[in-house]
């Protein structure tokens, strides 16, 4: 069983890594339902960093799963000025129930119709299973991807990479605060 686990990350990166949008690319805009009567667009967050967390499905059987972890680390993300958005192909009612059950304090977006369209735009869709990859994107206030990461589907990537990326941006912003307005 040990060799399987060791092999998994390599397999995933060889097959999928090239497809995921990378650093310096413009983050495709989207407008998705977060609740039955509310939509969230990436453009809503212009001027502030956004963390996009694509994940395969609500109701992961693993206690303390990826979304629960990010929920717990949310104060740190917000301290660094960032907003967190979770995205999966689950529908809004599913998201609503999941967010309620797990006490989540950030929006879950439904990439539901057309199914997985946003995930595809980010190169984070798995055709075979019909779910999104476990992929992370940190997007700056100008809508440019500053960090991305594709995790093997079975491995929860944690929050360390996101925090490092946000901190690096925070430091950059400190140095270039004067020029930020001119760029956008």
């Amino acid at each position: 069983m040990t060799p399987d686990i060791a092999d998994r990350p390599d397999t995933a990166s060889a097959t999928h890594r090239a497809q995921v949008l990378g650093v310096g690319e413009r983050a495709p805009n989207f407008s998705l339902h977060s609740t039955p009567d509310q939509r969230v667009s990436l453009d809503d967050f212009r001027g502030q960093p956004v963390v996009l967390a694509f994940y395969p499905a609500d109701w992961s059987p693993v206690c303390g799963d990826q979304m629960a972890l990010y929920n717990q680390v949310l104060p740190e993300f917000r301290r660094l000025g960032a907003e967190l958005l979770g995205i999966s192909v689950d529908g809004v009612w599913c998201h609503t129930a999941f967010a309620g059950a797990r006490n989540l304090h950030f929006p879950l977006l439904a990439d539901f119709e057309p199914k997985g369209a946003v995930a595809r735009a980010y190169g984070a869709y798995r055709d075979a299973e019909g779910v999104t990859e476990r992929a992370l994107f940190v997007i700056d206030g100008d809508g440019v991807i500053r960090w991305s990461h594709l995790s093997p589907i079975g491995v929860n990537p944690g929050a360390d990479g996101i925090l490092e990326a946000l901190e690096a941006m925070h430091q950059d912003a400190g140095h270039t605060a004067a020029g930020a307005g001119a760029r956008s």
Partner: protein
Amino acid sequence: MSPAALKVPVNANDHTQGPSDAPVTLVEYGDYECPHCARAHPVLKLVLRRLGDRLRFVFRNFPLTELHPHAELAAEAAEAAGTRGKFWEMHDMIYDHQREGLEVEDLAQYAGAIGLDAIAVMQDVAAHTYLPRIREDFMGGVRSGVNGTPTFFINGMRFDGDWTDVDGFVEAISGAAVSV
């Protein structure tokens, strides 16, 4: 991508079992209200027994309070017991009795059952004396790539395998000893 690595080395503030010069150190980030951690508890006992002096075991707090409203309270009680020299006794009590309850009165009862002054322990809990330490454990875990509970690090590298497979877990741990 290589697996996540432990960012906070094992140090004098840690709760440890086993010799400090053991060839393998297993670090667990755990949550006292997490049912998976409770399931892992007897597995760890077995692993510790099988590996004996070849293993040092470290427990660090990773309470997911949004999911488990009693996790932090229980961690504070374990830390308060730790100050009185009974961390592992309290740790075991909490995991063994997790399903019976982790309310203040339950924790007080567990503290009493291991021979501690329950009132003194619960006063420390109420004063949140050990909360900064618990939060420090948590953030150190986040920085190290802890991705849920329990998360294990074997000689500083995150173990992404299946700990419910005891033989495989023991093999992964002893394998790390060989490669040192």
